[in-house]
């Protein structure tokens, strides 16, 4: 059965309560390498939530471990800055980390892992 776009968009998985994400911090959703690897879920100080593949476009550093500011995270390995919304590296660096749709519903965080 092929899924319609709407159904795909509805494939939300529960992650955790918003409060279980540290402010200006992140948690990791564990996935096997075959399933595509870990996913980082970020929360900033405006309570916006973002999700990116936990793999820096530079050399694969775990973005979940970086310092978060505004809508960006600084990779812990070599300090590339990545846009949380798009996964794009901030110029002059170039590259993109895969992003995942997330939403907060009644204080609960959901992700669509595709």
């Amino acid at each position: 059965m092929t899924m319609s776009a709407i159904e795909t968009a509805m494939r939300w998985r529960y992650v955790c309560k918003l409060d279980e994400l540290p402010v200006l911090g992140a948690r990791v959703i564990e996935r096997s390498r075959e399933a595509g690897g870990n996913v980082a879920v970020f929360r900033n100080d405006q309570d916006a939530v973002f999700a990116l593949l936990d793999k820096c476009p530079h050399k694969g550093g775990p973005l979940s471990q970086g310092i978060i500011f505004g809508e960006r995270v600084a990779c812990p390995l070599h300090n590339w800055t990545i846009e949380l919304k798009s996964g794009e590296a901030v110029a002059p660096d170039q590259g993109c980390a895969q992003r995942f749709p997330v939403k907060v519903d009644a204080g609960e965080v959901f992700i669509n892992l595709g």
Partner: protein
Amino acid sequence: MSAKQKLAVIGNGMAGIRTIEELLKIAPDKYEITVFGAEPHPNYNRILLSPVLAGEQTIKDIVLNDWDWYRDNGIHLITGKKIVDIHRTRRELTADDGSKHPYDRLLIATGSNPFILPIDGNQLRGVISYRDIADTEAMIDAAKRYRKTVVIGGGLLGLEAANGLKLRGMDVTVVHVMPWLMERQLDERAGKLLQASLEAKGIEFRMQAQTEALVAGESGRVAALRFKGGEQIAADLVVMAVGIRPNTELAAKAGLAVSQCPGGILVTDTLQTLTDPRIYSVGECVNHRGKTYGLVAPLFEMAKVCANHLAEYGIGRYVGSVTSTKLKVTGIDLFSAGNFQGGEGTEDIVLSDPMGGVYKRLVIKDERLVGACLYGDTVDGSWYFKLLREGKTITEIRDHLMFGESNIGDVGHEGNTRSAQMKDSDEVCGCNGVCKGTITKVIKDKGLFTLDEVRKHTKASSSCGSCTGLVEQILMFTAGGDYSATPKMKPMCGCTDHTHQEVRDAIRDARLLSVPSVMQSLQWRTPNGCASCRPAINYYVISTWPKEAIDDPQSRFINERAHANIQKDGTFSVIPRMWGGETTADELRRIANAVDKYKIPTVKVTGGQRIDLLGVRKEDLPAVWKDIGMPSGHAYAKALRTVKTCVGSEWCRFGTQDSTQMGKDLERAMWRMYAPHKVKFAVSGCPRNCAEAGIKDVGVIGVDSGWELYVAGNGGIKTEVAQFLVKVKTAAEVLEYTGAFMQLYREEGWYLERTVHYVSRVGLDYVKKKVLDDAANRQALWERLQFALDGEPDPWVEFDKARVDTRQFIPIKPAAETAVTA
């Protein structure tokens, strides 16, 4: 829709367009911008006219902002038109074709005009100055058709013109009125060396020669130059390079205040004209605090401040610049800055190797470097320039000042020619594997000017920094200068204009207790700073207000948040504390068991006398800590790391003191101590110094009659030997003096400044005053440190107290898909 304000710019040159670039960065939509340029070109790098003349680059290479740039940024560019009138009350410009253009704000950046000697024949055909593309093209053209050139003026511009024309096959004579070349940038010795090198290239010189007139030939073109006294020499082309005058005609006509001598439109520290605050001015045409500038570095500093005020941010003042000079003649290394001539109350350090073609003179006044003149080997120019601008005392580095900063590493620091000779495939930055070709390419492609920009784009010189000199040389040969911003005024990061010191002071004076309160009261530009300022501010608040300030783990680098060192594959390493490097069978057994149980791939003895467990998965960290049951080694933190010891008098036949016990006592007294950077101690039992105390932040050496204390050593990127501080008798004194020094550093050091850099900034004498001479202050410092450390938790054990967020160790397992109503 409210119409945007109109900003008009007169002068499509380096300073004006740089200001617009800075403005677009911070307020891209504020103005409708119109730029008027008398030259028929987009903005180009005037500096690089010299390499163009020398045939090393083409006009195309030196364009900084091409036509597309103006279009893409919505700027109306009107070239080939001169503005001839500013009507200040109507706020309207008139161009030379009679067209009128209104403005709300105006930026005048008209640069300067070459000075033309008031002598007979100065208007003849074949007599030109050296300022723009048209002049350069005229010279290139003349070189094809004529042979004899005379360049009047032995300054920077004149010599670069002479060199270029010589390379284009002309016979070149330089006529100079002074006894040696570039007399405003070089002393006599360096000037003469320079002359010899240029003579070796085939250029001839007539020194202390005054030109009386230029003589026309039959065709009406210049044919000869006549000296005072009547002698004549043949000349088909005469280049006048005898100085520049600020181009202020238009401003003066509009009634703006203009200085007569040295010239220039008078501006304030916000780069507004003194007369009319709607009108700003930057570049060579201005006079700021009585000074005019003829180099781009200061103009770029002006541009930044001016843009900030145009954007109505109102932060920042331009307070003047110190400049340095380099000559862009391939194969000649020359650098000068500050007062290189010396004079009353100054001392000289001189190195002269005429055979090797090297001459260096450093001028010192009141223990500070005030001038430098380098010839033949300029690799340390930027370092000297930095010392000069920072005005630091050089007492402690005096002995090796002359040998430069960079007598380390293997990148080779042999002067400019070295970088010029490098192949594109040669590696410049060993840390990041960046080759010369990569660097030159981005400099050209992206129009980079500063070391910082090169670091950002290539990562070269952004790690250990030992290749900085080389990168600067490449920058200067490719872009034509060294434009590093003045470090003294350097803000913490892009989020603020405040320096580290200003932030530290504000935290103390205004009793700021948290990162957000600092950002708020100092008006940070970004909502929560960045990865560079937040850790610094967090350290400043907790070190200034222990027990009161709130530590913010999210403002710490991951290592200090997870209390382990992140590795390149995202796993962590665990280095437990082994007091003084001593361990027991029991500890080793627990370590061994943990290694088996958690399948830890690597166990390594570190350079700091302890054991590193590498490749621990993050979720295993708490269990590994628990199983090994040893305190945190803080190998991950800007904190006290190891205290290395030797066996000392307990076992060693030479030992004079129980160095192992002393080391353990020091470590127990000061572990858990956060600091501006990591801190390492070592204690040796005799001067054989097996614990390598000579390269530690604090090194202690036992001698028969007590202990010698050394401070501010560093074994890392650039090895620095620790300096003798004091000799004491008892172990209690070792603790007190060490603690006092540490607390001074903790309270005053800038974030990421190791003790060696802190001490070189404030001077060892200052440290002595605070720690040795003033006993009461020493005790007070030591007490403050003990107060701060009292009850500090071990983050591997007391998670809550240490504010360790343990949720980070628990990965979330993906839940099943759930249908959620939208």
